């Protein structure tokens, strides 16, 4: 009974994805129509320069935003878990949590209004595009990183850090040799989360971007509105293959590390 519920849920989640990938290999011009095996839509994908350009821009923004978000969010999560009471802590906590719970349209619109006001007042950022999307995605990503890091530090307790300090380690040494290794998995998970969120975001990017900054979701949104082609099937297959291999690689590394430790 319980197994049936799980199977049903997984089937619902996977059915559209499996069909999406399967029909990537169909020759038919209409998506989700079988017209014999063919790789033509993968070729079409490889030759679609606007799509590749958008994908490259999205990857660059996602990598940059995830890295900045990990630095800022890591500091924020550490401060919330370890700094004890400080002035403005309540406000800080509210601000860190806000991007997690604000609806996307609200985040997007409010950030755009900020960028317009800033440009009017100080001339920066001049125009909107990749930079403004990067700033917006960093802000959203850092909230997620902060939550993950704070949770990790909270469940770990301060015992190890206090022991290191008692044994004479200076604060920076404690941080480098105890705290940082403790939160490293959380930082990695947070980076990946921020990276994925950035790659997948359409709404916030549509608000804060400009003509020169068409990200992959923005490009796909326009294409889907114009009408589907099986290129999206091919793109889905490529992305799933990449995500699957990344996952397999991480799993392999973790298992090897575990075996060496054991």
């Amino acid at each position: 009974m319980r197994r049936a519920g799980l199977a049903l849920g997984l089937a619902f989640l996977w059915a559209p994805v499996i069909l999406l990938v399967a029909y990537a290999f169909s020759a038919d011009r209409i998506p989700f129509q079988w017209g014999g095996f063919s790789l033509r839509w993968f070729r079409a994908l490889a030759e679609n320069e606007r799509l590749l350009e958008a994908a490259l821009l999205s990857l660059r923004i996602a990598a940059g935003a995830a890295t900045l978000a990990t630095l800022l969010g890591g500091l924020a999560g550490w401060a919330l878990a370890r700094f004890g009471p400080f002035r403005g802590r309540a406000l800080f906590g509210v601000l860190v949590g806000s991007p997690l719970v604000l609806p996307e349209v609200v985040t997007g619109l409010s950030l755009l209004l900020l960028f317009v006001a800033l440009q009017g007042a100080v001339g920066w950022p001049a125009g909107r595009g990749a930079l403004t999307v990067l700033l917006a995605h960093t802000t959203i990503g850092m909230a997620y990183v902060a939550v993950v890091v704070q949770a990790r530090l909270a469940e770990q307790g301060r015992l190890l850090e206090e022991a290191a300090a008692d044994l004479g380690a200076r604060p920076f040494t404690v941080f480098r040799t105890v705290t940082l290794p403790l939160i490293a998995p959380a930082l990695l998970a947070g980076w990946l989360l921020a990276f994925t969120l950035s790659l997948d975001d359409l709404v916030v990017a549509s608000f804060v971007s400009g003509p020169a900054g068409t990200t992959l979701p923005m490009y796909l949104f326009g294409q889907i509105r114009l009408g589907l082609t099986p290129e999206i099937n091919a793109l889905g297959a490529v992305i799933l293959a990449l995500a699957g291999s990344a996952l397999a690689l991480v799993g392999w590394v973790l298992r090897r590390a575990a075996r060496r430790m054991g």
Partner: protein
Amino acid sequence: MRRLLLLAPPFLWLLAFVAAPVAILLAIALAEPAMGVPPFTPPLAWDGEGPRWRGTLLSFAILAEDRFYLDAFLRSLRVAFLSALLCLLLAYPMALGILRARPSRRLPLLLLVLLPFWTGFLLRIGAWIGLLRDEGWLNGVLRGLGLIEAPVPMLYTDLALYLGMVHSYLPFAVLPLYAALSRLDPALEEAAADLGARPAVAFLTVTLPLSFPGALAGFLLVFIPAAGEFVIPELLGPPEAQLVGRVLWTEFFQNRDWPLAAALAVALLALLVLPIRLFQRLEARP
């Protein structure tokens, strides 16, 4: 001193990119729409002698008077509520199923729940379009089986809207439920069984009530973003279903009425303050 240096970068970033935007949003919701770039007159202006207030409640008055906007809010709340409920109904047996699986299988099963996410949100929406349209895959299969003669309209209906919503948000409900259920002590249900409760009774009287906070967190984690959702209603839902996210988008991008869009955002925020606070209280529990 060192702490201040470490705290300053994230704090200043949040003040600049979270606090300031919300403040500006509030201000522009009070501005008067005008022709030009940007298309409004600032609510607070300098005129030689000092600041002068030129704000107006015009946009909020439009929201309050025009049935269209009230209907959009009510419809959004209904869609968000139903989507969250459907997610929860589907997620509960999934979370339980993962928990009851062998420990070595739990992580792979959780990853199976998450992996469809990595195909990209828009590609999954695109897949639903290809499956549901009149000449799409599902109608083809149904016709091939002889179940229908003419295609059944499925795309741009409530069916497509809810399929898209539940498909996109389901993992958000599964994860907090799984976390809540895995924290419960299995000995509690065993004790109920030892005292003579049948499995269904033990589940209904012990596990279900204890998992309520996790279920509520999962519900809110779907409800909050779903209330402002734009993409799924736009690409899958019925065209006449004007939801807040969509109305805000149209006011901003097509009608270029920035103050009205900002007022819609402020109203949406005001509506979501209670669910958001509730969610944060649930998350803050030890």
